């Protein structure tokens, strides 16, 4: 009894402290009425109104979806492109936790956080698109498992991967809240979450491509291939990393005040390393695309509007940015790398939209164009994600150094080794600032 009430009082005290702390953290840091805040707030408000209309009156009240085009930009851009852009998280966790490329460690948290939020919001945008979202629990709770469905697989992997990414990211939350013991437990789960996460990513990145395997009679032959799953997977590698480069260059400016010395100093080196992986992955992707093209004898399609669109995508936004990456690596030019990253991202948007919307049902007489309302809702989803990201980065140790009590055990160990070996403790004190 005595110990029970002791624990209870401890829990209440701790939760009181937590609530107080949380409320104090909810307050905005910095000025409230910046141009960015005003624009994003008005778009989000408009988007929220439109979402209410969508659920009250049905999808046709805000979208241009039709019987011929059941999926529009909410799926083609928000989900399919958004998830490809979020691929950076699994590639980087592979580099850092599996291959132990410590070089990339400084940006692992921001990348995983970005990936996690991308999944929450962009895969979450799927709920807006679902006609009967209240039944979304059916494939989850097991009262109706469509195990032969690619969609079932993708949906499950989204959910499980969100959990895995949250575990990967959770030590930062524990550090923010000052939960030392929980931080230790969560830190111990990282490797398992990483392995699970990479496996899931492999499957759902390719799974998004596999969604279109049964649309064989609808997608233009230049974009349909039995290899769509593999092409989607390979392209998610450089899509994700290009996004990391792109976002990095923005957060480098916006979050300068939160950035630790380590992140700041290693930035250029990291960007060049990522550019190298991008170039290699793009070469593989381009090679696969060429093989598919030649194997399926698509020469005749080239001299048509569709053929030109295909060439723009493959040459203009895969081959050329790959070449630019290589060139930038040669001269170690960060600005050019960023330019290549932007081109690559446009190429991915083109490819995903071509497959899912533009070249989908290419013979249909009435084409699909998104309404302004679909675009506003998409933008609100993006802005909400950015605001949540900013809130977290400004509070938790994402770009900044973790608190001293939570510093890496391994680093401690290395410190000890060096202390004994070199007997120069002062040197370490300086460099670990």
């Amino acid at each position, binding site marked *: 009894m005595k110990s029970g009430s002791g624990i209870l009082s401890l829990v209440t005290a701790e939760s009181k402290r937590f609530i107080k702390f949380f409320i104090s953290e909810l307050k905005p840091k910095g000025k409230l009425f910046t141009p960015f805040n005003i624009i994003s707030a008005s778009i989000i408000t408009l988007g929220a109104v439109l979402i209410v209309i969508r659920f009250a009156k049905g999808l046709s009240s805000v979208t241009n979806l039709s019987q011929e085009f059941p999926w529009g930009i909410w799926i083609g851009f928000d989900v399919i492109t958004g998830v490809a852009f979020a691929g950076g998280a699994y590639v980087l966790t592979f580099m850092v936790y599996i291959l132990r490329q410590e070089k990339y460690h400084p940006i692992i948290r921001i990348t995983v956080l970005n990936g996690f939020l991308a999944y929450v919001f962009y895969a979450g945008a799927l709920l807006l698109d679902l006609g009967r979202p209240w039944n979304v629990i059916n494939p989850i709770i097991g009262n109706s498992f469509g195990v*032969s469905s690619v969609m079932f697989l993708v949906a499950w992997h989204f959910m499980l991967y969100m959990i895995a990414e949250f575990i990967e990211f959770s030590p930062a939350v524990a550090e923010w809240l000052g939960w030392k013991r929980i931080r230790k437990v969560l830190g111990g789960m990282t490797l398992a979450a990483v392995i699970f996460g990479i496996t899931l990513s492999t499957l759902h990145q390719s799974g998004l491509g596999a969604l279109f395997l049964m649309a064989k009679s609808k997608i233009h032959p230049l974009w349909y291939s039995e290899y769509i799953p593999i092409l989607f997977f390979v392209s998610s590698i450089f899509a994700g990393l290009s996004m990391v480069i792109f976002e990095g260059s923005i957060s480098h400016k916006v979050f300068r005040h939160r950035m630790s010395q380590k992140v700041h100093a290693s930035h250029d080196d990291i960007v060049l390393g990522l550019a190298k992986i991008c170039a290699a992955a793009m070469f593989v992707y381009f090679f696969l695309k060429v093989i598919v093209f030649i194997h399926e004898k698509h020469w005749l399609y080239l001299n048509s509007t569709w053929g030109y669109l295909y060439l723009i995508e493959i040459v203009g936004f895969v081959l050329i940015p790959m070449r630019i990456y290589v060139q930038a690596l040669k001269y170690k030019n960060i600005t050019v790398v960023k330019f290549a990253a932007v081109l690559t991202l446009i190429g991915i948007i083109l490819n995903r939209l071509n497959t899912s919307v533009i070249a*989908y049902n290419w013979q249909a007489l009435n084409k699909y164009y998104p309404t302004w309302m679909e675009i506003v809702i998409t933008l609100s989803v993006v802005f909400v994600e950015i605001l949540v990201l900013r809130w977290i980065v400004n509070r938790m140790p994402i770009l900044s150094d973790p608190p001293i009590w939570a510093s890496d055990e391994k680093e401690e160990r290395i410190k000890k080794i060096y202390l004994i070996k070199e007997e120069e403790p002062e040197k370490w004190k300086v460099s670990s600032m």
Partner: protein
Amino acid sequence: MDRRSFVKTLGIMGACTLPGRALQAENMGDETEFYGILVDTTKCVGCQTCTVTCAETHGLPEPDLDALWDSDVPRKTSDKQWTLINRFEVDDQEYYVKTQCMHCCQPACAAACPTKALLKTKEGPVVWRADKCMGCRFCMVSCPFDMPKFEYNSPVPKIQKCVMCWERLRVGQKPACIEACPEEAIIFGKRRDLIDEARRRIYEDPELYVHEIYGEHEVGGTGYLYLASVPLEKLGFRTDLGTIAYPEYTKTFLYSVPIVITLWPAILLALNNASKQAHESTEKED
């Protein structure tokens, strides 16, 4: 191996055999044959009685009968009309063709559905179940005939398409359109018998019919079968769909899933271990 882990292994092995047995039993009990419908386009006169009856039976709005004569392009079914007749002119001869869900033997929509809302019943009809569907519209993306239609105008939308009057079938009645047809252009029966009947008609009147039954092999076979006296692509049929059942296209991917799920973690762990040793040895060298 100690006793505890031995018992554990035994338990796991036993558990593994359970679903296997259940599956076997399911297959053995499945002796019903699919029902189907044979459409003889040489007999159809375009009276549209089937269209009207279908709407009455399923509580759909009254169909616009003049559209048959007004429309230049073949019309498609909609969320308000499950079946309709299209008119085609080939060599100065008029042909009427009924359109509706084909009730594939291995339907793409049912394989695509993450909640099994679309279901191939053992009687043959492909039906939709409101309590399962979450409205992802993957069935619409997958169906080679573009048959599932979605109610975009409704906050509680349904998937609308022909269900071959499954509710009538189960009480021993024929589909409503079959009973309504005054020309016997559509007949109902076991799919196997219908194919025999179609072959007999071609054999007895080889001049009249093209020697092909649309739906016998298309996309792995469909419940609806068509006879015609002109090549079927001239009557608005897609003849480029192939004979492979649509679910086969995702089979390779789905079969590779368990392989990746089991192999990837092992490979990643091995890599992690290898890099650990490499990392430590370089540290020592430093």
